[in-house]
């Protein structure tokens, strides 16, 4: 009986070992999205995004967000125009967090449209909330009016345990 149990445990450990090796081999092919939400103790998320400054005639679109991603589609009219978005991140869990990843990706669009971000708070302790801004701007020195006046941007923000 003892031997039988020993064989079962040994087999299981072998399976785990094989899975670990397989995981290492195929890790790059796995679809790993965002940070896992584990019970209520880990709960760092984007809670809001709003356009707080819009130049005349510009369209801030309908900014969207989920727990780790924000996206917005900005339409600017003339050189010098800006749209300023304010994004709120909250640590609603019970574990102190530290900023791990901030990536902003621009989709295809006008070259004259650029963006800049204010720095995110590096450490976000349990219960804390922080905001940061993303400014989308139409190059003031641009002399030509481009055909495309829009540009979509997606931002990914991830915190992990401090």
């Amino acid at each position, binding site marked *: 009986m003892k031997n039988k149990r020993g064989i079962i445990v040994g087999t299981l450990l072998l399976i785990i070992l094989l899975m670990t090796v397989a995981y290492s081999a195929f890790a790059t092919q796995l679809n790993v*999205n965002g*940070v896992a939400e584990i*019970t209520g103790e880990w709960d760092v998320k984007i809670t809001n995004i709003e356009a707080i400054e819009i130049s005349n005639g510009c369209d801030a679109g309908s900014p969207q967000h989920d727990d780790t991603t924000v996206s917005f589609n900005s339409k600017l009219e003339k050189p010098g125009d800006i749209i300023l978005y304010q994004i709120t991140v909250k640590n609603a869990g019970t574990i102190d967090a530290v900023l791990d990843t901030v990536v902003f990706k621009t989709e295809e669009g006008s070259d004259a449209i650029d963006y800049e971000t204010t720095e995110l708070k590096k450490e976000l302790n349990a219960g804390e909330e922080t905001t940061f801004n993303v400014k989308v701007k139409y190059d003031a020195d641009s002399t030509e009016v481009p055909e495309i006046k829009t540009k979509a941007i997606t931002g990914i923000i991830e915190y992990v345990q401090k």
Partner: protein
Amino acid sequence: MAMEKVKKENSIYMLIISIIYILINFSFGFFCGFARSPYNHDILAILKNVIVKILPIIGIELARAVLINKNRNNKRNLIIITILFILLEINYHAMINAYKDKQDFFEYVCKSLIPLVMYSCLYTYLTAKCSCLLPIIFRSIKQISILILPILPNMDWFMQGSIEAISVTIIAILFQYSFGKNVKTNKLLGASHLIVILISILLVCFMLGMFKYEPITILSNSMEPAFERADVVIYKKIDEKQLGEIPIGSIIIYSTDGKNIAHRIVDKINENGIIQYQTKGDRNNMADRDLVQVEQIKGVYVFHIKYIGFPSVWLYEYFHI
């Protein structure tokens, strides 16, 4: 001495079950995707996390064992002890956060509260029947796996809640057999346990869309008389290659703005090789405003079951109206 042997055997049994649980739980990530673990994976941080998480588990289970040993034969007291430990282990912080929104709270109840209640009942049962070592082994291994694995299955609330509920049931049944109950005396009960577990697993997999066929509850009457509000439509997922070859007259299920719609194809438009479908609800006077791109299509209607979607409709309306 014999009792010690039983405890040891059951502890090894629990060790095996715990490892199988982790393997199965992890493998669900291949269906629903993985997400990075938020926990710090430096050696010191792992050690700190393990101590912070495991010591309370041991303390709680030892306390449960002390109380159970004094009330082993009193069912009413065992129930009170279980309730006490449920109250002790509720994550009040998460509950208060979730309470602000009806849907969040419902999800919290399904993915956290119900499993907590079920697990607490299981731990009381295992401790009363054998030893507090069983829950300590299971909980510790489960917790350690969460703390050390770099990626974790990215499950939604339904999947999390369902897997935990099924796991508790299976573990309870396995130990019921291990403790010697109903092994030879009631084979029929054993078969019924197995059937119920299999049906539960299949149902969860079906709801999660792991099969070729998937259900969807109809929320409006736009397709009357083909089907109506609260009917459940079963649709068949179709291959990417066939998405442009769906015949006119078929009912397709497609998603738009985060909602699923089941409408009939009334026209097919091919512009420079890009195929789009014009759809319309049978009861509607006009065709739908936007054309449906092939990427939006989830599947083709196969059949429907009348009225069984009412609970889903009520729940949806409760949360969204």
